[in-house]
């Protein structure tokens, strides 16, 4: 298949791997965090750790939107799902994420109308077909998904689809990375930055990482060649800077149209990240001018519907997701991993999402197998 096979070519892979082996400083350990869940999955799927020198340590970061969605978001979604006449439209990965007491999958089995969609535009279609129902789309994801969700709201406003709303759990990447580099426990020398986020925001929002914190950064694509080449670029950097490997997709300044639609519909807010906690300005909430499409405003304001039926959210103490998302621990350090916590019965979100670090280790990792 064109545009994929070229980036999985064995000869090229061997060549880049060889260059990496030649370029590494033998006396140094390189701690490189791959921020994005798609990178984590790709690294495992293609067995890239096997072909890298031992001095390169790849640490999985917080870049899986499902994994960083906190219990309270799931609890809220479940509460809304149980309201009369509501259809929840969501990405499939969200179904199994455990909230404080239940999951959307379990609520679905109990009779809630929860439908899997591949895009917010599919959710709009459900809204058009069901004028007597209230459709709530669970908006999660980073800058990559936010523009399409913003568009869905703009379309809904234009078409006067008043039965459509979005529960926004959107998060932004540069702000959480700033929180990460502030954390003194986290030892990372360089970042492999998510290519698709930069397709929207470009490279400039990350420049503080190299300027203020002296971290090498390469914005990378997702195929084996992309990842290896990005690692090579990191190793070769003399002075820390932000570089783009994924040039076939990314413009330095990003996609102005997409940025515009995000800014039109959303504004920055404080956001809670599972495992990381509250991070200032790292979330996107729907602006007041679009409040009729904000599920938080329409369904969760206690004043409107009397007593709110939201539960008090609790984090699961057996779960190491927080440490894992920060790269402080690996899944193998977690007492629940592959024992109490499996993809069928996940305790933490890192096991639920197909891009979660624990799911990747469970599915592809070598060491998991003896404990299964």
């Amino acid at each position: 298949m064109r545009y994929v096979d070229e980036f999985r070519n064995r000869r090229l892979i061997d060549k880049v791997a060889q260059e990496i082996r030649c370029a590494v400083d033998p006396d140094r350990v390189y701690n490189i965090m791959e921020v994005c869940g798609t990178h984590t999955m790709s690294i495992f799927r293609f067995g890239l750790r096997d072909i890298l020198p031992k001095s390169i340590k790849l640490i999985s970061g917080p870049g899986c939107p499902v994994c960083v969605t906190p219990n309270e978001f799931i609890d809220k979604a479940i509460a809304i799902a149980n309201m009369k006449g509501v259809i929840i439209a969501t990405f499939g990965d969200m179904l199994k994420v455990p909230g404080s007491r239940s999951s959307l999958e379990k609520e679905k089995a109990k009779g809630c109308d929860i439908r899997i969609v591949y895009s917010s535009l599919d959710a709009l279609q459900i809204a058009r077909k069901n004028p007597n129902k209230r459709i709530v789309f669970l908006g999660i994801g980073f800058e990559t998904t936010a523009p399409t969700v913003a568009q869905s709201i703009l379309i809904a406003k234009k078409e006067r689809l008043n039965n459509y709303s979005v529960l926004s759990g959107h998060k932004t990447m540069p702000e959480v990375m700033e929180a990460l580099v502030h954390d003194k426990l986290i030892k990372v020398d360089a970042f492999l930055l998510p290519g698709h986020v930069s397709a929207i925001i470009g490279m400039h929002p990350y420049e503080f990482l190299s300027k203020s914190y002296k971290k090498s950064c390469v914005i990378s694509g997702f195929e084996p060649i992309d990842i290896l080449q990005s690692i090579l670029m990191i190793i070769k950097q003399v002075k820390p800077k932000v570089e783009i490997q994924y040039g076939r997709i990314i413009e330095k300044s990003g996609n102005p149209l997409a940025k515009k639609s995000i800014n039109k519909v959303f504004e920055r807010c404080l956001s809670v990240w599972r495992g990381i906690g509250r991070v200032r300005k790292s979330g996107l909430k729907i602006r007041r001018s679009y409040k009729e499409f904000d599920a938080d405003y329409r369904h969760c304001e206690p004043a409107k519907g009397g007593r709110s039926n939201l539960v008090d959210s609790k984090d699961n103490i057996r779960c190491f997701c927080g440490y894992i998302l920060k790269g402080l621990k690996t899944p193998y350090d977690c007492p629940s991993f592959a024992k109490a916590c499996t993809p069928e019965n996940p305790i933490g979100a890192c096991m639920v999402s197909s891009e979660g670090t624990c799911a990747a280790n469970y599915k592809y990792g070598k060491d998991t197998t003896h404990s299964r």
Partner: protein
Amino acid sequence: MEKILLTHGSGGTLMHKLIDSLFMRELDNPILREKKDSAIVKIGKKSLAFTTDSYVVNPILFPGGDIGSLAVYGTVNDLAVCGAKPLFISLGMIIEEGLDRDLLERIVRSVSLAAKRSGVKVVTGDTKVVERGSCDKVFINTSGIGEICYPGLSVDKIKAGDSVLVSGTIGDHAISVLSKREGISFSSKVKSDSAPLNGLIARALKVSDKVKFMRDPTRGGVATTLNEMVTAGKFGIAIDEDRLPVANGVKAGCELLGFDPLYLACEGRVIIVVQKLHEDKVLRSMRSDPLGRKARVIGRVVKEFPGKVYLETVSGGRRIVGMLSGEQLPRIC
């Protein structure tokens, strides 16, 4: 109270747990315990293979097939992989009130054609109609009986060094069904591989007496089927990513939807484990059949990693290929 979730029917680990903890517990007997695609039962001196399967595929018409032909081929294949010659099948239909008569005719004609193509007779049937909403258009159950012609196929005969063959490209069925599913539909030229394998299998068994074991990789795909073979823990299986036959359209569909072709259902493919010496012979015989043109050796049985299936990746690394767990692909067959 615990509820049954869609994942319980996915063909993966959760389904196996449900089978072991409920069905096996309540219905246990030596034949059921074998957990083969078909039960092998002895009546007098004759050995028979007996199997059943229900079909709930959504949508009921898909590129390359429909629920009618699928219901025949699925059962025929379950008999054939056990070394049986499929003879008779039953047809149980559960129809939703309001179904177009024309559509039903089309499906039944398809059953008839598929039965002729596979050389089996539909000898008994049942028809039920339920209220609108109680089922989705039409569900079909078929059971089948076949005569064992090649006894002795068994997972216990597999030894390190044996070759693992697949009869054609993998994942075509799942992608063809998904490409037409409401809410996902995308433009794709992939056709389902749904087809009767009894001819191809009989020929392979005729040319070699060193075929050890066979299974059709339906739900859960090649990965899950191979994992079922290694569960006893006596050997491992190594597969070579470079050699996996995957059609371009399936590759594209997988990239789009985030699937791994190793986990996608096939409905007209068989995995054959054969002694290395007979590999060429069997491969030639498979390739002489139109359904096996793209047959390939995809891997081998190994001593290392007993109980595990692992993949040598295109990039030269290795990774474990586990059983399907927790994926959301309901109603693919």
